[in-house]
């Protein structure tokens, strides 16, 4: 049997001979899933469960925090500050007619290695007590200062400071961490930045859309 015959016979037994090429929809779905960095969760189910539990807790807390103060943004802010144990400092109360910028301080998420479940607008809306867009003006002593250009949800703030502890690589979508001059969409829950596809570079595909759906209007 010549090499060609052998190859032909092998080809005849190719199990993928009848596998149809991927449809445009399938390609689009796979590309979207990949670039929005949503890893496969099946292999680490226990992490996924833990993450899901955290999200549930966060969602509950977020709801509890925002519910009583729907009509009183200032009160909401105070409640949030008192309740959130890991918020480093109280935000300045929003005083009318002052030039002083209203600053909110939050923490970067701790180094969680769990794989994430796909982000959803519902969860973002339920869990986030603060969601905003802004530009990083300073990264100094592990504190990132973000000039807020738009608040989607939560107390009005002009400046948000994020305590970025150590290496936070691959936690934000996009470049992975806050960088000077970068524009970001950031959500926080109980004073901690929400990762797993909820915060990241403003240009991250799908992220703005997610915010739009979570906080319409």
């Amino acid at each position, binding site marked *: *049997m010549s*090499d060609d015959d*052998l*190859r032909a*016979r*092998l*080809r*005849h*037994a*190719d*199990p*993928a*001979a*009848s*596998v*149809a*090429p*991927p449809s445009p929809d*399938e*390609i689009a779905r*796979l*590309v979207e*899933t*990949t*670039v929005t*960095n949503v*890893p*496969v969760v*099946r*292999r680490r189910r226990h992490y996924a469960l833990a993450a899901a539990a955290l999200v549930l807790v966060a969602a509950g807390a977020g709801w509890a925090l925002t519910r009583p103060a729907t009509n009183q943004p200032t009160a909401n802010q105070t409640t949030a500050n008192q309740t959130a144990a890991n918020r480093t400092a109280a935000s300045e109360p929003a005083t009318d007619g002052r030039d002083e910028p209203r600053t909110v301080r939050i923490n970067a998420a701790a180094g969680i290695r769990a794989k994430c479940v796909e982000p959803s607008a519902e969860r973002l809306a339920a869990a986030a007590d603060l969601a905003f867009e802004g530009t990083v003006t300073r990264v100094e002593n592990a504190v990132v200062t973000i000039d807020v250009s738009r608040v989607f949800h939560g107390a009005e703030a002009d400046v948000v400071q994020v305590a970025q502890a150590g290496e936070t690589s691959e936690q934000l979508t*996009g470049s992975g961490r806050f960088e000077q001059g970068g524009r970001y969409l950031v959500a926080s829950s109980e004073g901690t930045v929400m990762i797993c596809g909820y915060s990241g*570079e403003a*240009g*991250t*595909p799908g992220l703005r859309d997610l915010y739009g759906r979570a906080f319409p209007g």
Partner: protein
Amino acid sequence: MNVDARRARFEAVAPAVIDAVRRYLARRTDPATADDVLSETLLICWRRLEAMPDEHVLWAYGIARNCLANADRGRRRQARLAARIARLDPPRTVSEPPAGDDGLTDALAGLRPEEAELLRLWAWEDLSPAQIAVVLGVSVNAVNIRLHRARTSLREQLRKRGGAAGHEESTKGRRR
């Protein structure tokens, strides 16, 4: 590279990579593992996009190969696999090998795994020795030598099984 340019580059290569890697995996593993490994492979391609050479499909084969090896190593095979397939993903008929050439299937199974893999890359992925060398990360010369040996072993296996020769002869016989 900014986000949009990165994404555009990934989108440009994705169809070819997805098609090739899906087939590659369909030839080597069950559908559920194939889905997992495809996602993982794409994720690694995306993260390492800056390192992607022009021969992106060969590069992706190499990544898929490693991911598949990890998946195989990492899983507690029988029970979990059976349970998962039954629950999440009933077997698809498309990835069943065409019925008929049992002799060849057996003969392939009788080879050393490295030899069988070389032959698959050669005949199924339709790669030249130079391309196989890229996927496996070895020299072209080594591929040529090993491929020659693998073909010899396969012929040997087919001969041993007798049915293989019979298979050809009987076809000829019918034609006459």
